[in-house]
């Protein structure tokens, strides 16, 4: 395996491969020239590994790259997510403390919807007949009330194997702190049933609260065989081709893990794709000189927003997966399977290009969350969709080019768009077509702006200090309007907004997020014990990084601690000062916690005791970021890229304006475009409203001042 973290690695090329629903994107970065090369091949949904290899082989062929010169292969995958959503995970068994084997059946004991009498709950990932108890019980303080019955463990494991279990999860009460019984049970099973994968909850998710911990471990187990095979197959195929650079997978938290490690913790890969997008956008922003970015990714069904502050994406601790899941810790709990792993936080709102506009029975106009998706899609796709969507409204307003959608791969039918907006919106509200189309866009933009406020202003962060990075097919079309709604002035459109996630794969470090529950009142905490715990976490992190061939000089770590007031259930994550943990360190932690509590909730209870719940350590293996090559320079006049003119409606101008249409591919660094204007490229359309200007920066980004 190559030295992934080595600054002086001999390989010249770094390759990122992102598999989407339709296309597999390959980005090749040439360290020698700084050039980024792109390849797009059709995805192979039935066999994603084949799509990966097709793209990889084609990239090498097309650019004449010798495989020995490839030093790093980064991969973002939806295999884990799709396995859960499609219900194609492995058959897993669960061994729990006796009396508690219904932990998945009972879940949170809530209904996912208060007022829906015909509600559905997610089906547990382990059938009840395969969830078994064994005699054992440890109390919250480590006292053994019932010793582990090892014979029972073996008997249960054999029974599960006989029922077809491909993996077994062991999840005992209080194992987050006292894992001895789980480990002993694992050893017993490994002796009795060699080859049967065993997942320990104390290994995958050593945090208290049995249901989320067990659920996370079970998700890991049902993913293990399929994702493990997938990763192994890619690794073997790459090895056969003579690749020296190891395969690395993007994790939900925005780091990468070497293939063999990722294959053991596939639960960490669930949000691989979205995390890659945020990392890619962050890299583009950083190179353009913006350490603080709000990433805005608009696709066909939803728009997603994420925050990056000082180069670090905001991380959330828990989310849910499954076909009905809402990917958030607080809203819509109980619709999916909880997964407690650090994850790049994206707030999602049901406003994408295919989102449906409708007048509800009470007479109000709404946009989304219902979506026509890509099939049948908006009415103008002429695939049988008859409902009015955001894309239809954009077409009516002249913002989309019916002959150059997806670079001309899809023709849009304006008459169908008009009929849909006329029938479903204009007629019902007594508006003309343009008014109706404009109202759809404005309501859609308001919803997206609300999501943006949610991640910024609501958390006490002023978005005016951030740049809005627009990705996805729809982002650049609405970014200027959204920025204006929240008072942001800078918008960045990367050269290839659709390839942001593939780029992200090349722009991230190796990373392992480790946690230790300590649960001690800060005033009673023993600094030496905490220091020792951090030492153990650091050693574990170094061991994982070493397994990934990261040299010691490329390793570093970040230490955090989760604190709350004694009695609270939710913690705030506080950075821990460097150096050995001493009484002074604890005092600093406590002060930082009071300040963070005041910032988050408006008050601090300085007289109240605080508790340190968990210690966290991120072990990081630094990699070299791609240094993007500069674009061809030109003067400030963009006339050479002018391809047409057409009428585009702008509400702020009170009507349609005659607009220049530019070809993105022909713009040169230094060009300045004054709004109103439209910039078209293969994967997106950028809209400049009147009063906005766009400058093409040195690496080809469009930097909008709105």
């Amino acid at each position: 395996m190559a030295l992934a973290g080595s600054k002086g690695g001999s390989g010249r090329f770094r390759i990122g491969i992102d598999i989407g629903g339709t296309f597999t994107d390959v980005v090749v970065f040439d360290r020698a020239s700084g050039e980024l090369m792109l390849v797009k091949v059709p995805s192979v949904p039935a066999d994603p590994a084949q799509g990966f290899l097709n793209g990889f082989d084609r990239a090498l062929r097309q650019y004449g790259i010798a495989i020995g010169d490839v030093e790093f292969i980064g991969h973002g995958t939806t295999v884990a997510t799709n396995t859960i959503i499609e219900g194609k995970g492995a058959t897993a068994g669960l061994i729990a403390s006796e009396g508690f084997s219904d932990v998945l059946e009972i879940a949170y004991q809530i209904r996912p919807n208060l007022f829906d009498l015909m509600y559905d709950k997610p089906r547990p990932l382990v059938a009840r007949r395969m969830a078994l108890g064994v005699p054992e019980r440890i109390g919250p303080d480590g006292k053994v009330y019932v010793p582990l019955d090892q014979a029972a463990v073996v008997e249960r494991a054999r029974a599960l194997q006989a029922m077809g279990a491909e993996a077994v999860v062991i999840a005992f009460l209080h194992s987050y702190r006292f894992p001895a019984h789980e480990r002993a049970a694992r050893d017993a099973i490994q002796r009795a049933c060699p080859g049967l994968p065993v997942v320990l909850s104390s290994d995958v998710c050593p945090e208290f609260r049995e249901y989320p911990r067990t659920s996370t471990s079970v998700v890991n187990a049902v993913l293990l065989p399929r994702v493990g095979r997938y990763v192994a197959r890619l690794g073997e195929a790459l090895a056969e081709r003579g690749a020296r650079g190891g395969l690395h997978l993007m994790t939900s938290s925005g780091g990468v893990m070497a293939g063999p490690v990722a294959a053991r913790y596939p639960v960490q890969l669930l949000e691989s794709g979205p995390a890659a997008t945020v990392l890619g956008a962050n890299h583009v922003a950083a190179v353009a000189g913006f350490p603080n970015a709000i990433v805005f990714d608009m696709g066909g069904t939803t728009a997603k927003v994420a925050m990056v502050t000082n180069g670090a994406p905001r991380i959330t601790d828990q989310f849910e997966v499954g076909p009905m899941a809402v990917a958030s810790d607080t809203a819509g709990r109980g619709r999916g399977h909880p997964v407690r792993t650090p994850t790049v936080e994206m707030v999602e709102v049901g406003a994408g290009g295919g989102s449906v506009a409708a007048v509800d029975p009470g007479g109000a106009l709404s946009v989304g969350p219902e979506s026509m998706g890509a099939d049948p899609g908006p009415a103008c796709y002429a695939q049988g969709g008859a409902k009015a969507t955001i894309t239809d409204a954009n077409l009516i307003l002249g913002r989309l080019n019916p002959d150059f959608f997806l670079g001309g791969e899809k023709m849009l039918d304006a008459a169908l768009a008009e009929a849909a907006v006329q029938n479903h919106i204009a007629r019902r509200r007594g508006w003309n077509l343009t008014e109706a189309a404009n109202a759809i866009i404005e309501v859609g933009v308001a919803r997206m702006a609300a999501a943006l406020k949610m991640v910024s202003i609501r958390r006490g962060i002023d978005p005016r200090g951030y740049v809005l990075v627009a990705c996805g097919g729809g982002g650049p079309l609405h970014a200027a309007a959204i920025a204006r709604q929240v008072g942001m002035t800078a918008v960045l459109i990367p050269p290839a907004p659709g390839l942001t996630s593939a780029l992200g794969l090349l722009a991230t470090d190796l990373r392992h997020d480790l946690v230790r529950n300590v649960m001690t009142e800060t005033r009673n905490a023993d600094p030496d014990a905490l220091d020792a715990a951090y030492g153990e976490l650091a050693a574990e992190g170094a061991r994982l990084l070493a397994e990934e061939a990261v040299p010691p000089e490329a390793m570093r770590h970040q230490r955090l601690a989760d604190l709350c007031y004694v009695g609270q259930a939710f913690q705030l994550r506080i950075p821990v000062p460097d150096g050995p943990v001493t009484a002074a360190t604890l005092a600093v932690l406590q002060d930082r916690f009071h300040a963070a509590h005041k910032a988050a909730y408006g008050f601090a209870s300085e007289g109240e005791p605080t508790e340190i719940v968990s210690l966290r350590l991120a072990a990081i293996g630094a990699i070299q970021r791609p240094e993007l090559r500069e674009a061809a320079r030109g003067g400030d006049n963009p006339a050479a890229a002018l391809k047409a003119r057409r009428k585009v409606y702008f509400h702020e101008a009170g009507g349609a304006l005659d607009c220049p249409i530019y070809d993105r591919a022909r713009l040169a660094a230094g060009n300045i475009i004054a709004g109103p204007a439209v910039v078209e490229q293969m994967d997106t359309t950028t809209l400049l409203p009147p009063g906005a200007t766009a400058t093409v920066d040195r690496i080809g980004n469009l930097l909008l001042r709105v």
Partner: protein
Amino acid sequence: MPQVTNAREALADLAEGLPPPDMDPITFEVLRNAFMTVTEEMAVTLRRTAYSTNVKTRGDFSCSVIDRDLRVIAQSGQPGHLVSIATTIPASVREIGIEKFRPGDAFLVNDPYRGSNHLNDITCFAPVFVAGELFGFVANMAHHVDVGGASPASLGVNTEIFQEGVILPVTQIAADGAIIDNVMNLILANVRPRREVLGDLRAQLSANAVAARRIGELIATHGLPTLRKFCDELLAYTNRWVDLELRRLPQGTFRAEVFRDDDGISDEPIRLCIAVTLKDGQAILDITGTSPQVRGPMNATRMQTRRSLTHILRCLCDPRIPNNSGFLDRVQCVGPDRTVLTAESPAAVVGAFETMYRVVSGIMLALHPVLPERLPAAGKSLVVNLGFAGWHPRLREYYCYMETVGGGDGARPHKDGYDAVQSEMQNTENAPIEEVELNYPVMIKRYELIEDSGGPGRFRGGLGVRRDFWFAEEECSFSILSDGRKFAPWGLAGGGEGRVARYVLDPDGEARELPSKVTLRVPKGGVVSVQTPGGGGFGPASARDPAKVAEDVANRKVSAAAAAGTYGVKAVR
């Protein structure tokens, strides 16, 4: 289901006649979402800063925004709380006089005879002023672990409200943004878990502060006149839509008579007479014939009774209709005073939810003949209030804890009922075992589904839950305030009954059956087993798909004996 889709589309056609809100559609949509977000943000703040497991983990609270005209504009939270806030706040504000409120004020109220549910549910409300002008109020209601009185968690078989805990009429708790210490001290001196009650009250105050800030921002952006206009338009819009929906439901009067076991003092069953009239866009619940108010704590006020019909109507109307006074005002409760459903002071009320949930399932029973495709069989129809208190050896203080336990939900016309869920108006989470054991001197000995407890049927009722509390290290005083040991959740359309509830002391030893309403001393080492009811079945058991019976047998949800005896299916494990 195709029927529902067709009904929705037909409805949408009919709705073309409704006038739109008389307001810029974008501003309307923006403000509608903004107010919903305000209540959600209040909820997040309350949950994240609260101290008691009941609030921080189980989510037993609700949040509201109320305008100057004392109309609820937006609400989120437990359905069981919603009408209560809408009743309590107007009554409280009128009692004080709206002109008397000052910026920085905050008030508490928990008096059931002023609109609260029971004394444990404390509403905290505050006026919202922007530039000296009153916009309205923000309010949240949280179920406190304990508000004093005779029994742990304020759950006991008492006969007067005075024994149930400290009564807060409209009581000022903050002035100029600062807590009034002598009022707070008076409250804390009367409750068992002082630290948790204080922490939760502080969380309630800060949730209101967050909401007031957000409303201030909205006024700064849109102006107060626009917000006022929006409130009018939102309520008118809701009203038009509710009217349309209510007129589309079957019209007429529909009746049911159902029972609760007893009031905890006598063995007399409590009769609940339900007559629901749907007519001309109004919904009326007539309780004439219901038992007179009882001595024990099973009484409900007229406000609570009204709420049970509001809940069912919300379930039957378009889910997109906003939750505000435009909806809540449509429902009335008529019939004599001083019945168990229209109790008057000083009747004891802490068990009112147990009575209410049976009314909710009773309303569904009444409507089932005219809505056979849309209503489930009876669910567990209980809160199952549990509380215990005692000495905490590690913290060296008196502690108090409460929780409620899920059970089987009723089977539906095309689906099984779910196992181990909250039912009817309640949707609080369970308390994680590890969290409970870390914080209180109790161990949970088992927490599992009860085999064969679901009512048999073509679609099976959900299974009840067994949760055993083991006091391994210290004795305690344990209260159960529940019901459901005698009258089981019924099936519909030929479906069978769910298993009744059981409460057992020392289940693996002497196994002494306990009444459903009791406070007892549990010695060190003692175990209290709480076993909640299963839900009723739907359709005849003989019509159940044998493959589903076999699956239930394999999953230990139905025994082989029951499969053979009840379903006529031979299945082995």
